[in-house]
């Protein structure tokens, strides 16, 4: 209490040699930093209580045939954009990469396999929560038809979720 009585602001708005405005600005910056840490996205998506086992498959399109060698079973998978941990690789399969190609004679657009390129299907297992609105690993939604960007220590790529199986 005695200390507070000694703080006096002089006519130049200084406490001793320190400007009062500078003190207020520094305090506000500290508060902002603390609030930013408090409200920033978590770096790890952890399984929520009551979560279930989710198995989902991501289709990585237009890859060279040797790309599948980079997908290691057991590798940890992260969301490339926010760094969330979103599971572990459980399996990998390879299929043809197809593009739409118009057939002018038959008047139809065919799905045509492209030589030299493939689609790599990465099977991932994780703990997730299912609500009325979404299936999510922490804050990361896993929905069929959603484009996601994944990485392991060996590769990074974007692709669509093409399969989703939940085990109660």
């Amino acid at each position: 209490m005695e200390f507070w009585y000694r703080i006096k602001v002089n006519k130049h708005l200084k406490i001793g040699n320190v400007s009062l405005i500078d003190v207020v600005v520094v305090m506000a910056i500290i508060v902002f930093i603390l609030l930013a840490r408090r409200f920033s996205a978590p770096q790890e998506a952890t399984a929520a209580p009551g979560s279930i086992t989710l198995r989902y498959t991501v289709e990585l399109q237009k890859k060279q045939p040797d790309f599948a060698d980079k997908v290691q079973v057991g590798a940890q998978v992260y969301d490339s954009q926010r760094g969330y941990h979103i599971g572990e690789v459980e399996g990998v399969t390879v299929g043809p990469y197809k593009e739409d190609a118009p057939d002018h004679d038959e008047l139809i657009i065919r799905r045509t396999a492209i030589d030299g390129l493939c689609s790599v299907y990465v099977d991932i297992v994780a703990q997730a929560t299912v609500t009325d609105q979404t299936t999510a690993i922490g804050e990361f939604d896993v929905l069929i038809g959603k484009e996601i960007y994944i990485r392991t220590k060996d590769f990074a790529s974007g692709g669509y979720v093409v399969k989703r199986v939940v085990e109660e």
Partner: protein
Amino acid sequence: MIIDSRGRIAGKVSVIDAALALIVIGLAVGFAVRQFQIKPTVQENNATIYVTVNIEPIRDFSIEAINEGDIFYEQYATQSMGKVIKLSSQPAKELIKIPDGTIHYVEMEEKYKLTVTLECKGIIRDTGYYINGNAQISEGGDLTLQSNKALCYAKVTDISEQLQ
């Protein structure tokens, strides 16, 4: 002079300090307004509205993920939009131009158009249809819809108070 030769307002406060303080105060006020903003009240929905959408072109794995009885939300909405009560699929179509210069509307292999009818609760006003009292939807409008299984991009093709 308002600002003296040493750059101080009324000889007391540095111009730089004053500008910095104004910026910080402005950010703080903006942050506080966003955090403590009063959320719009949800109005009671008293009408049943049938919304039909087309989702195309989609592949077979998306077709299999959308079923009758599924509850759909508009992406990022806090209230559900409606329940799937009817759906049908047919091959998706796209325009192609062939070498003779003519344009044809042709089927796409392995891609589909899914027509989904949602039963929704909302309000019907002179200005339009409001699902869950908040979001207005119109024929021709685009929606990003999600259930707890799938995410899809849909176009509204019909809105009515009677099931077609």
